[in-house]
Structure formats: C-alpha cells, structure tokens
C-alpha cells in the first residue's frame, strides 16, 4: 500500500514526537506555573488541589505578586541583585570567554592534537556527574585542606587577601559561585564556537592572509562576524539556563545536609532567584508552591523578554535571510 502524504503534513509527522515532548515538558509546566502563581497553594491545601483542580480551598490571589513587586518579601531585592550579578558574570564567561577560548584553540593553535587535548580538558567538568563536580569544588576551596588558597599563595596572593571561608565570605562566596558555574558553562560555548570556526572555509582565511591580514585581523574581521548565529544561540541558551540554574549552588552550599541551606545561602549572598523559588517550594516546611510559582513566572517572563531583545540586537531577520555569498 502506498500513501501519498503532502509535503506540508510530512514535517509535522516527524516533528510530532518532539512537539509532544515540548507540550508535556515545557508548555504544560509553564501554564501550570502561571495558574499556580495566582494561588495560595501550599502543603496545607495541596491534597485538596490534587483531588480537585478547582477546589475552593485553593484561593485565587494577587498576594504573591504584591510581595514580589512591592518588596514585601525582605529577600526579593537581594535575590534580584545577586541574580543579576550571577547571570551577567557567568554569561560573560560562557559566551565571551568561551569565544576567545575557541578562537585560540581552533584558530591560533594549529597543532590538531594539542587543540583536541585542550578542548577535551575544558569538557571534563561537563562530562563529570554534577555531584562529583560540586564535591571536588568543596574540597578544592576548603581553607584548611583545599588547594585553592595554597595555589593562590604560590602565585603571590597575600594571605591577608584570602578569605577565611570561600563559602561564607561575600564577595568571595559570590566569586566562587561564578567560577563554579562559569568553568562548567564555558565548555558549552566552546564546543559550539569551535565547530563553527572549523566550518569556515579555509579559502576565505587564506585569501585574507595572502592579502597581508594578521591573525588578529582574521579573527576580528572574518571569524567573529561569521559566528553571529552561534553567538546568538549560545547567549540565548545560556541566559535561559542561568536564570533557572541553581543546582551547583544548592549542592555546594547545602552540602552539610540536615536542611537550613536557605539561611546559609542568604548569609553567603548566593541566594539566586531560582534557588529562592526552589527553597520556597521544597525547603520551607510549608511548601509554598503558589509563591514559588509566582517567583518562577517572573523568571520565565524575564527569559522571554531577554530572548526578544537578543533577537533584535543580533538582527535575527537578517541572520535568517539566505547568504549573499557562496560560503
């Protein structure tokens, strides 16, 4: 039996499995987050809620947003500030530093074996299980037994500049938060950029070199302009990922176990917005699902706004147009 399928229908058939996944794993949770953000759902009325989605015991309320927007929650301003520092700093490492690293590895280092070894070395934290990565950092930063302070002293950092505790002393604790996430995150951008650089036809680069361009000029005027599309992708992806990521902070600052990490993270000034949301939903004894959803909703909206902004900045339409030159 032979079936004629329209070309308009065929892509949807192939896309169907992915679309189903997106509906279940992204759209449904977002809709649920929007709904819950306007409720007072907590462990108190959770059982009524799961029995009846529209139970009267779960109340519609604007109180969650009132607490957020009018800073009635004492941690909101601090969480916002810390999140801004965290996202901007780690994003710089993950996109700008990763770009510099990729150009160095993929263009300046001509030895393919050495280039590969460097790429793999940056990938190690990414292939390492997250909990091991966090544990290694915990050992590394230990002021007594760890290597970090020792290494810093060897390179000439005065002992007086070193913190008693990398975990608890701001801004060192914030620096640690940025390093931990930046080191593992840089590898993602590096892989994308390196692949893109390797796909640039050598003819273009050789032509520029023949014309007398220096390596720096090649990087500045040929490689970077051709990486706009991967840069947009990396920055967008990493922004969304950073806005919602807190797992390494939770693993490192909560490694003592026994709960109470929320108070410690606040004292260390590493309580990012997503971790705050998580702590309200799952660490607080009341399990404030409604308030945590409202906090998460702010993250979703922030992420969407930033993506639109990136598209404008990078000229998304122009990027989507067919290439004017044969590359």
């Amino acid at each position, binding site marked *: 039996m032979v079936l004629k399928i329209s070309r308009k229908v065929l892509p949807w058939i192939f896309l169907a499995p992915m679309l189903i996944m997106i509906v279940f794993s992204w759209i449904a949770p977002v809709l649920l987050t929007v709904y819950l953000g306007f409720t007072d759902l907590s462990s108190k009325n959770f059982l009524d809620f799961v029995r009846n989605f529209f139970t009267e015991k779960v109340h519609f309320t604007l109180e969650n947003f009132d607490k957020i927007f009018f800073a009635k929650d004492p941690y909101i301003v601090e969480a916002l500030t810390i999140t801004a520092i965290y996202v901007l700093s780690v994003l710089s490492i993950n996109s700008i530093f990763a770009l510099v690293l990729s150009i160095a590895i993929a263009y300046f280092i001509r030895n393919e074996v050495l280039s590969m070894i460097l790429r793999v070395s940056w990938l190690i934290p990414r292939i390492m299980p997250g909990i091991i990565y966090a544990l290694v950092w915990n050992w590394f930063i230990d002021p007594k037994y760890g290597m970090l302070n020792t290494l810093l002293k060897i390179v000439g950092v005065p002992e007086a500049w070193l913190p*008693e505790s990398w975990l608890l002393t701001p801004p060192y604790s914030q620096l640690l938060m940025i390093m931990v996430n930046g080191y593992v995150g840089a590898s993602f951008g590096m892989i994308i950029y390196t692949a893109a650089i390797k796909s640039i036809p050598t003819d273009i680069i050789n032509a520029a070199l023949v014309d007398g361009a220096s390596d720096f000029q090649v990087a500045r005027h040929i490689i970077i302009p051709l990486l706009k599309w991967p840069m947009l992708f990396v920055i967008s992806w990493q922004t969304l990922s950073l806005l919602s990521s807190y797992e390494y902070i939770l693993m490192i600052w909560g490694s003592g176990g026994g709960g109470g990490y929320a*108070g410690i993270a606040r004292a260390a000034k590493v309580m990012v917005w997503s971790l705050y949301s998580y702590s309200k939903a799952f660490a607080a004894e*009341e399990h404030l699902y409604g308030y945590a959803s409202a906090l998460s909703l702010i993250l979703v909206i922030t992420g969407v706004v930033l993506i639109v902004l990136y598209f404008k900045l990078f000229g998304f339409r122009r990027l989507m147009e067919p290439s004017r030159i044969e590359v």
Partner: protein
Amino acid sequence: MAHSAQIKLSTVLPVILLIVGIIIGFAVGFAVRPPAPTPTATPSPSPTVKVIKITVWASGSPVDITRVDNIERAASILNRMFEAAGVPVKIEVEKQFFRGDYMEKLTAAFAAGEAPDIIAMKNLPVLADGGYIIALDGYVEKYKDLLNDVYPVLWNAVKYKGKIWALPQDTEARPLYFRKDVLRQLGWSEEEIEALPEKIENGEVTLLDLIEVAKEAMDKGLVQWGFYHRPNFGGTPFVILYYQYGGILQDPETGKLVLDKSAMLKMLELLYRMAQVDKVLPPTMIGTSWRQIHADFVNGRVLFWFGGTWHWAEWQRVAYHEELGELPEEYEWENIGFALVPAPEPGLKPMTLSSPYLYYVTAQAEEPEIAFLLIELATSAPIDAIHSVDSGHLPVRSTTVEQPYYKQSKFHREVAYMLEYTSFEPLHPKWGAYKDAWITAITKVEKGEVTPEEALDEMVETLKAELGDELIIRD
C-alpha cells in the same frame, strides 16, 4: 513539480507509532511509577487468609533502619497473635527507607493515591494541617493501657491544635561531648574528669568556665579549636542557649512563634564572644562539612563538641578516626565524655534538647487501626530497646530501660538522666522560616560580619515580614 512524497504507509506508520508510543510510555511510566517496595521475605499465605498490606516509609542515617524494621517486627508479633486466635488475617509489611527528607515523594504518592499507611518523620504541623495524617486520639484512648509507659513529656511533641497526631518513635539528647585525653594533658585528674558531668548538672561549671579551659588547651597547642557546633541549624546548641537565657519559642496560649529579643541577643552575643573575642570557635563553623567535624573531634583536634547521642553510635560505625577507623566503644569511654549543655553563665541552668521522631498513620491508610496497632507495638519496650541501642537514640517508653538489651548498653544507662533536662523545638508550620532567619544571623555574627545587635535587628525585620501575625516579639 511533485508536491507530495510517496511513502509506504506500512513502513512509516509503525515507526511513527513506535516513537510516539515510546515517548508516551516513558512519560506515563515515569509519572505513575510507584515507589520501589522492599518486599519482605514473608511467604504467601494460603488463599483463605486475608492479607493486609501495610506500607511504611521512614528516613534517617543508616543506623536508623530500625524505624522501618521495627514495624516488621510488630507485624510479626501481631501475626502470631492472629494465628493463635485463629483469625484468618496476615499482615505483610512493605518498607522503604530514605536517607534524607522524603516530603516531595510523599506528596507525589498522595497525589497518586498510593501513600504509605505509616510514615516516620517530623513535620507534624505541616502533615496535620495538610490532611496527610489522621488524629489518633480515639485509638490512644482505646489502647491507653499499652501506652501508659510513654514518657509524659513526649506527649507534648505529638499534640497539635488539641489533638494527638502521632506516637513518639524515638528521641535523643544533645550533649556536650568533651575529650578526656586533652583534659588529662591539661593536668586534670581522673576524678576531676569523671566529676565534670555532675558539676555541669549542678551548675558548678558553666560554659564560661569551659571557654577558659578551651582557651588554655588552644594556647598550649593541644587542640586546634576549643568548640565545634553543628554546621547548620539543627537546634543544637542555638535553641538550647536561647532557652537557657529565658527565651521561649512558642506562646502556649495562642501557639504563635515568639522572639524574645533579650534572650536572642544574649545567645548571639555568646556566639560572637566564642568566635570573635575568645576565638575558641571557628568563625566559619556554619557550612563546615560533617565529615570534617567528626574527623576533627574523634581525632582529638577539638576539645568540646555540641553533638547528639546518636553520634556515639555513629563514631563506632563510620570510620572517622585516621588510625583506628571505626572507634571501638572502649576507646570512646577512655577518651570521650559527655554532659548536659552547661549553663551559659552562673545562675542559669544546664539543658539539652530533644527532637522526637514520630510515627504517623496516614489519611490514605486502608486499615488505620491495624496501622496504629503496629506503631504502638513498634514502640513498645522490647522493640523500642532495639532501636534505641542500635541507633544511639533514647527510648520513648520508661519501661524500655528495664529491657535486658537496653540494660547492657552502658552509654544509654549513663545518658538517660538527660531527658529530665530536655526541651523541645516549637510545633509550627512557619518554624522553617524562623530557623532560616536565625541561622542567617548566627552565620553573620560568628563571622564578625555584623554585631549581635545588628543581626538581631535584621532578624526581627525578616521575621516580621515572613511570619506576620504568627509572630510575637517580646523585649
């Protein structure tokens, strides 16, 4: 130009259906996956016997596995009774033991209608307010003859909003451990060392005295630090010190949380003094790894440790000592002593803290009375003794101390008196928010980042915003 593709349906359709099926299968399977039970070795009874399946969930450190095993022991007793009486009923226990908090799994199980029948955890107010558990007053009244040996003070830990919601599963004391070998090196005689717990109990020795001893030991290079406390909240010694300075945490009439500013300030000032003035406590104690804390104490690098009774058992089972590994109990008796948390200063009282673990019958239990009988039997003296001794906790029944298995434990005999000095944390759904604000203040004060007064002001503002009407502030 052709606008359609010719594809064999018999080729494409099964592939698409397979992919979609696998994805949906995974999603559905994941969503409805029941908790993996640990089936007991009980053989299947004959078809004429009614089988009642009871599921129990609990958590704790590895030595606390008796929290689920004891339900199985209780079921075994009950089954033998049924058999003797010719009752065609057999109880089978499915048990699951977690290392950490399992509240998320519990809510998911409730949502799926597959909640266990019995749970062991703390969190009473949340469980009661949320309808996860049932009040046990009726059963307690019906079977009160079997409950009259529960320590009276422990009933306070299971009462909430005028009802009894649980039976105490275990309790503990939070002693101050000290290194006898270091005191010997300081020139203390054996008699002086052995008399220290009693002097602390009588109020002759206070925390201020021990701070001086710690300073001396540090000055002589015998230890690296005088004191260690927990790396997170956990109640010890913060709640104890606050109570010792006269603070209360819960208003007995309204049930609201209380912040006594005077007591809180004194507690913060004491910690500030220990960490920043006398420098006998690491200023970065909060956040230190548990392994380092235990290793430093059992290896004699710290003189005093605000620990828990269960640590005595933990040191025997976890290899913290750099040469000996797991500590033989003889080593502990030779080198480690324990006492109540001393009065912070003369005129105040020594104290300890208990945070009882509780057995609950859930709202989804199909046979709540059977479940109640199981928890009642599981906490009865002979079985209570097994859990107490094996896990280093203290018993919940006064008659447990007469059990042969309990009697052979010297440690339990010697710490039993501490229950007379015990206190409890409040039972309130917003206690978690209170603890978070408190540990933030402690962390900042010990580091010297803020003064005790500034930390208290910050804490007051935070608690006002977080607790609202549920907070009473007293000067």
